[in-house]
């Protein structure tokens, strides 16, 4: 009984990675919809974080995200990721138009582990509190429409994972260069934290001259 209570509000590194990957899934889909990158009829309503979030139902997009996020979760649970970038490019000219950065910062947590083994760190932060924080970020994402420039071309997107130097490249993955946006402007949105990871969301976009 006592052990059950002790583990009640306990988020492990793995759980924290799960929460973040879930946020990424909803966040990226919301961006795809809100920025009008894909046709609106290819999206379905889903309820999450007390919000209506529109999720792509294009099988190619969903499988792409599934594959990327699965690997992301694995790396996140080992604290190997610095940053995840969602890059929106012009499909014809390949010009980078917008870049959404999700910066990951490892935090120590507040569990009573000895602090030596990072995989045993825990956080006692309430899931509902984390989800409320995520909800605020999601709201801000949908509010960005009011200041981001129009993406008036056929676009595509990619997800780039900024990992540690010693990360092995799994099958079907490639190493790539950083992207940059000319005449860029950055806006930092709210942050949220699971207690083990702090996630900052930043949108970089091309200023229209």
């Amino acid at each position: 009984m006592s052990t059950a209570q002790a583990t009640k509000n306990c988020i492990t590194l793995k759980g924290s990675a799960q929460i973040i990957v879930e946020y990424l899934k909803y966040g990226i889909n919301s961006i795809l919809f809100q920025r009008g990158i894909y046709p609106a009829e290819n999206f379905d309503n889903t309820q999450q974080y007390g919000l209506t979030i529109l999720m792509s139902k294009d099988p190619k997009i969903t499988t792409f995200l599934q594959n990327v996020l699965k690997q992301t979760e694995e790396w996140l649970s080992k604290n190997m990721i610095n940053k995840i970038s969602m890059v929106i490019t012009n499909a014809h000219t390949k010009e980078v138009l917008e870049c959404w950065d999700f910066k990951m910062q490892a935090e120590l947590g507040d569990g009573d582990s000895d602090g030596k083994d990072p995989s045993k760190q825990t956080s006692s932060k309430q899931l509902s509190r984390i989800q409320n924080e995520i909800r605020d970020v999601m709201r801000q994402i949908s509010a960005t429409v009011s200041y981001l420039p129009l993406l008036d071309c056929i676009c595509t997107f990619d997800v780039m994972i900024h990992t540690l130097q010693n990360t092995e490249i799994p099958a079907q993955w490639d190493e790539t260069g950083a992207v940059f946006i000319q005449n860029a402007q950055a806006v930092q949105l709210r942050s949220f934290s699971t207690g083990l990871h702090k996630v900052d969301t930043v949108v970089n976009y091309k200023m229209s001259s």
Partner: protein
Amino acid sequence: MSQFNFVSDLQNALIMDGETRGPAPRWKKKLEASLNGSVNTTRSVLSVSYNTSFSGVQAPTKTPGKSSDAKTKKNATTPTKTPGGGDRFIPNRAATNFELAHFLVNKDSGDKSDEDQEQQPTSSNENNVQASAHKGERQKLIAEVAQVGESSKSGRILCYQNKAPAAPESHTNPLKVVYSLKTPISTKSGSRYIPTTSERILDAPDFINDYYLNLMDWSGDNIVAVALGNCVYLWNAASGNIEQLTEYEEGDYACALSWIQEGQILAIGNSSGAVELWDCSKVKRLRVMDGHSARVGSLAWNSYLVSSGSRDGTIIHHDVRSREHKIGSLNGHAQEVCGLKWSTDFKYLASGGNDNLVNVWSLAGNGVGTATDPLHKFNEHQAAVRALAWCPWQPNTLASGGGTADRCIKFWNVCNGSLIKSVDSKSQVCSLLFSRHYKELISAHGFANNQLTIWKYPSMVKQADLTGHTSRVLQMAMSPDGSTVISAGADETLRLWNCFAPDPMAAKKVSNVNSNAKKSVFRQSIR
């Protein structure tokens, strides 16, 4: 700034080192100085000279013995792997600050791959110079953008090989309507004549352009109350007289105005969080009811009850008759409450907030106020909800309109909480009103056309667009006879639209029926 530092650094380096060796090694010495001289001098062979003449510099900088086979191989393949068109980059020479970029890259990151690239035996070709310079600039920009020294955190950037597909070629961004000035207005001629120009324009200087306030209302006594700056004015629509009701002190202002159903009494929500009651026939303040910690941006009357929604996210029911006026507080919104309406049968209260929620509260069991938990929480809007209207002929139907990020008018059945219909209006929805004479609805919009749109309900076929405002239309109110709509725009004008004037033929018929009924006392008593 960094450019100047760089130049002065350079000069220092040159002065300290007395040797004279011609132009080529200048960068070398510079590098040694900056890297404490510990670095292999052949390191940045490809670095660009300050006069940007490529061919001149590169000749002496080759180190063919340096790179192993493996290295060369790797370098050769690296650029081709770059997705997002890295290999198809077309450099803009004019915008590329070659020497600075290169210097910065070498100085603070010691980027291995860059270095490797430079050490390629074939490095004298110009492409490589451009590539490395381009890369340098890229990193600098990214570091700048990210506002952290991320270039120092050497790491890998990985991406999945099977990319997501591009949008279909036929796709056009639906957001275009939000940006485009040329959104077409279709003036579909309806079944009746609607004048599309305003009947009258009133000047409204200092009308506050704030989406979250409700600064105008039209009373049953035919008086329009409007807040301009920190004053509240009454305009008698019958006589045209203007009267100043009150003036707030500098910094304070009225945030919401609402007339009691019967007229005479005006409730004002102010910026300090209090709700004031004014008797407008005597121009006298009757009472002040506090309870909110932030400005009160929305008000709604239900006979002796006035409900107030505030920036602090709460809604309070005030019983204006009793000393303990606060009879209920609703905590259903996380952010500012900007829309508040009692249903036409007063069984439900609808509230809309900056948290994109529409809450519907049902009447409390004792008939006073509402239950403290919302009956329905509609979160389908993607932006703040300010426009709310209840259908007069279907008391269970609520219409709500979202802000810029949403642009939808949605209809809800509050009995079962279902979404009846959603229509994309292609512009921010600031206000909604149902007509009492026609099965129609009028919506007020912002960018791009700042128009009022009349829709047929429930088909939602556009009947007419009423244009004239030069900035977004913030508020609408209907005359007591239901024939005229007044709109307040951020262009500081109030415009009167005679858009719901009853059909003279139909009106005649109704009056005939009425007069017939009045004649026959017998028929009246049977009813």
